Structures are given as C-alpha cells and as structure tokens.
C-alpha cells in the first residue's frame, strides 16, 4: 500500500521538521543568554533583536530613534481570570499604547519581563506580583498582519470578480488577467491531477483561498514597510489554523471509502483485532498530515525572516564589536546577502504556497476518491 509509505515518509519528514525548530530555538535561547551576558555592555543583543523581529507583539513597531519608539498601537482585549482585582470587570479593552512600550503597568496588567511569560501580558495582584495570564484575545501584530493581507486579498479578488462579472463570455481584462493564470495553474496542475476530474470543482474555492492567502501573506511579509512586513505565516498559530482548515475540509468531505480505510483497512485481521493497530496508525496519519503542513510553512517562513534579520544585524554586531566604521564597512555585504535571501524568500513564498495547496489537494483527493 503506497499510502502507508507516503504517510510513514511524511511522518519522518514531520519528525525532522518538528525537531529542528525546537533545537534551533534551544540554541537560540542559549545564544540569547550568552549574547545577553557578553553584549550587554556594548548595547546590542543580536539574539534578542532577531527573536523580537520574528515574534508576535502587542504593538506594531515601526522605528526607534534613540529612546524614542514609533509604533502603531493595537487593541488589547483581555478576559480576566481574577475579576475581583479589577473591581469586578472581566472584559478589558484598551490600546497597547497604554503600556508605553512595556514600561508601565495599566489597570493591573503588565507586559512581563520575567523568564516564564516574557513579552506576554500578565495579571498583577494588589502587591504588584505577577499571578498568571488572563485569557488574551488581543489584536496582535500577527493578527493585524493577517487582517491587512485579508483586506489586500479582498480588494484584489473583488476587482477580478467585478471584471469577471462584467466580462461574461468575453476576453478577460485588468486584474482578472493577473489572477486567472494562477487559478488555471491551480486547477490544471494541482486540483485536477490530485483530486480527479469528477470531484475537483467542489474543492476549487478551498484550494484557491488557501493558495492566495498563503502566497499573499508570505509576500506581504517580505515588504518591510508598514502596514506589511508582519511575520504572519511564520507564526505557528496562523499555520495551525490553515492546517486545521485543510483537516476539517478533508474529514468533512471524507466519503465512505475514506472512513473505511481508516477504521477497517484491507490488512490481515490480527492487525485490527484485538488491538486496533492499523486504525490507530491511520488515525495518527489523519493528524500528522495537517501537522506537517503547519510545521513546514511555519518553519520555512520563520527561517526566511530570521536569516534576513541576522544578516542585517551583522552590521550592528560589527559596529558594536569594532566600532562604527566596521559596521559601515560590513553593511554592503550584509545588505547584499539580505537582498539575496529576500529574493530567495520570494521563491520560497511561492513554493510553500504551492506545496501547502498541493498537499491539501492530495488529502482532499484521498478523502473523496472512490474505491479502486
């Protein structure tokens, strides 16, 4: 059964991808600490700089000049676990500018600097001690970035839909010309071969939405100018939602044959009874498939953002280690590398959107395939 091999292979791939960010993160933490110790007197902490650039934030930082920080405040929405500390109020909505770039407390909340909750909002008791996190539904930078790309996506596709409606039966024009080749590519190269001519039309909207959202979000993430440049697809929560979308579409559209393959596959009976070995394996496969999607997109986009930031921070590392002249000297090389990596990221953006859509299409195809 080739599908089992595919699943095993994917599980292995997943394992590799799963381990790497963790170890990388651990390395990063180590480096972070050592950098923090060694570089504290020079004033530049590369590890912190890089991690802060790829992490989510409560406000949208644009630039800093000396001690002045320019950033767009974003709404903070908290649901307190200890309403008695906030005069009985449970829901708290305010702008992130109230924290003054994590320097001040506000209404018994604080952006923590502690080891455990670093950068997250925590609740304080009367004595000013951190007692835990509230339910945090803030519109963070990542959420705002996702909204920005949703708005861009809407304006792009509504324009195309508008011309499509007006151009019925005639040659396409305007934005329609930009979008249609991609739609045709997804249909002819992804949906039709993976799902089959009979069922593919049903899945086209899902695949197109996935592809366009991921591609656009990836590309907007590479533009370092507000309101773009948020590391949206390099955030595991975002890719998790995208993977969950694929998971639910797959399982909701799963036909009888799909569920039979999971609970009663064509294998010797001793593999199913008394211990349901194969069904368990198949159910693991059900979960690993979207899991792989989640981790792959996340890791690729995160890595791209991180490398660009690392190359740029080389300027500041050199200038803090050997003086400003070294920083200026190294900047052309740094910028050249960063440009190269950004261009590579453009490629990666397309590839990752393609791979995510292709794998989703294959899973949809598995769920809707007839018995062969």
């Amino acid at each position, binding site marked *: 059964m080739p599908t089992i091999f595919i699943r095993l292979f994917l599980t292995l791939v997943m394992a590799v991808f799963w381990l790497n960010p963790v170890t990388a993160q651990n390395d990063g933490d180590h480096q972070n600490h050592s950098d923090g110790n060694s570089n504290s007197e020079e004033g530049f902490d590369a590890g912190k700089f890089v991690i802060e650039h790829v992490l989510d934030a409560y406000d949208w930082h644009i630039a800093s000049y000396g001690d002045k920080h320019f950033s767009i405040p974003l709404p903070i929405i908290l649901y307190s676990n200890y309403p008695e500390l906030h005069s009985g109020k449970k829901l708290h909505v305010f702008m992130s500018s109230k924290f003054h770039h994590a320097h001040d407390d506000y209404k018994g909340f604080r952006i923590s600097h502690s080891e455990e909750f670093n950068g997250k909002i925590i609740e304080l008791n009367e004595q000013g001690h951190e007692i835990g996190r509230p339910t945090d539904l803030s519109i963070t930078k990542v959420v705002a970035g996702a909204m920005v790309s949703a708005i861009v996506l809407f304006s792009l596709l509504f324009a195309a*839909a508008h011309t499509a409606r007006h151009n019925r039966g005639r040659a396409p024009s305007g934005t329609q010309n930009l979008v249609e080749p991609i*739609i045709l590519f997804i249909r002819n190269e992804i949906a039709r071969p993976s799902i089959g001519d009979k069922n593919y039309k049903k899945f086209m909207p899902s695949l197109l939405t996935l592809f366009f959202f991921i591609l656009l979000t990836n590309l907007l993430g590479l533009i370092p100018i507000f309101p773009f440049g948020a590391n949206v697809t390099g955030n595991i929560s975002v890719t998790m939602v995208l993977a969950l979308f694929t998971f639910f579409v797959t399982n909701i559209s799963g036909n009888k044959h799909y569920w039979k393959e999971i609970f009663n596959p064509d294998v010797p009976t001793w593999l199913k009874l008394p211990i349901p070995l194969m069904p368990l394996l198949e159910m693991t496969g059900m979960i690993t498939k979207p899991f792989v999607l989640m981790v792959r997109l996340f890791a690729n986009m995160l890595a791209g953002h991180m490398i660009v930031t690392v190359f740029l921070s080389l300027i500041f590392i050199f200038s803090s280690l050997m003086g400003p002249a070294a920083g200026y000297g190294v900047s052309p090389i740094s910028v050249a590398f960063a440009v190269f990596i950004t261009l590579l990221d453009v490629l990666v953006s397309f590839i990752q959107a393609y791979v995510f859509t292709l794998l989703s299409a294959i899973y949809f195809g598995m769920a809707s395939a007839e018995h062969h």
Partner: protein
Amino acid sequence: MELVTPNVGTIFWMIIVFGIVAFVLKKFAWRPILNGLYEREESIESALNAAEKARQEMANLKAGNELLLAEARKEKDAIMRQAMNLKDGIVAEAKEKASFETQKSIENARRQIENEKAKAITEMKQQMTEISLMIAEKVIRKEMAGNKQQQEMVNKLIDEIKLN
C-alpha cells in the same frame, strides 16, 4: 519555546479572519471568477467546434461546386457538340437544297429553251412555209394557173421536208 507554542488569542482571531476570508471569497470572488472561466472555456470550445463544422461545410460546398462546375462543363460540351452537328446538318441540307434548286432551275431553263426552240422552229416552219408558198406562188404564178393543186402538193412536199 515561545516560537513553537500556539497562542490562543492568535488562533481565535485567525479562525475568524480566515473563516471570513474563506467564506467571503468563496461566495463573492471564486464563484463569479470560476463561473466566468468555465463559461468562457465552454464558449471557446463551442466556437471552435462551430468553426470546425463551418470549415467542413465549406469543404463540402466546395466539392459540390466543383462537381456542379464539371457537370456544367460537360453539358456545355454536349450542347456545343449538338449545335455543331445541327449546324453541319443545316449546312448540308442547305447545300443539297440549293443544288436541287439549281438543278431544277437549270432543268426549267432547258425545258423553256426547248419549248422556245420548238416554238421558234414551228414559227420558222410556218414562216418558211409562207415564204416557200410565197416563193412557190410566185414561181407557180408564173408557171401554173390554178394554184390549189400546186399548194397542196407544195404543202405535202414541205411536210416531207424534215428539218434537222
């Protein structure tokens, strides 16, 4: 560890954002775009088919035309041949008729000539008779008293004389 830990708030908002995106795009973007695409593909396909059909028809028509032309040419040839034959026939007939007419007029002329000749001869004979008679009268007047017997004898003699 924060990098790989999903955040509840982000997940919550992403579900809302992506759910809206998926729903709205499906309803207001993909439906018209895909419908337009499928419609256009169908119309192009049908137009191509129609063109192919028209081409076929054209070829058929051309073949029919050629057939018609060949037939017309054949008919023309036949008519020409017929006309030629007719002409030849008419000419021959006319010639025959003309020669017959000529013959007839020649015959007529001859007959007329013959008649005239005969008439002339008879007249000549008569005149000759008269002249002879006159001569004979003069002669006989001189020689004979009664001329009745003489005239009868002379007439008999003249009748005996056959011209030619």
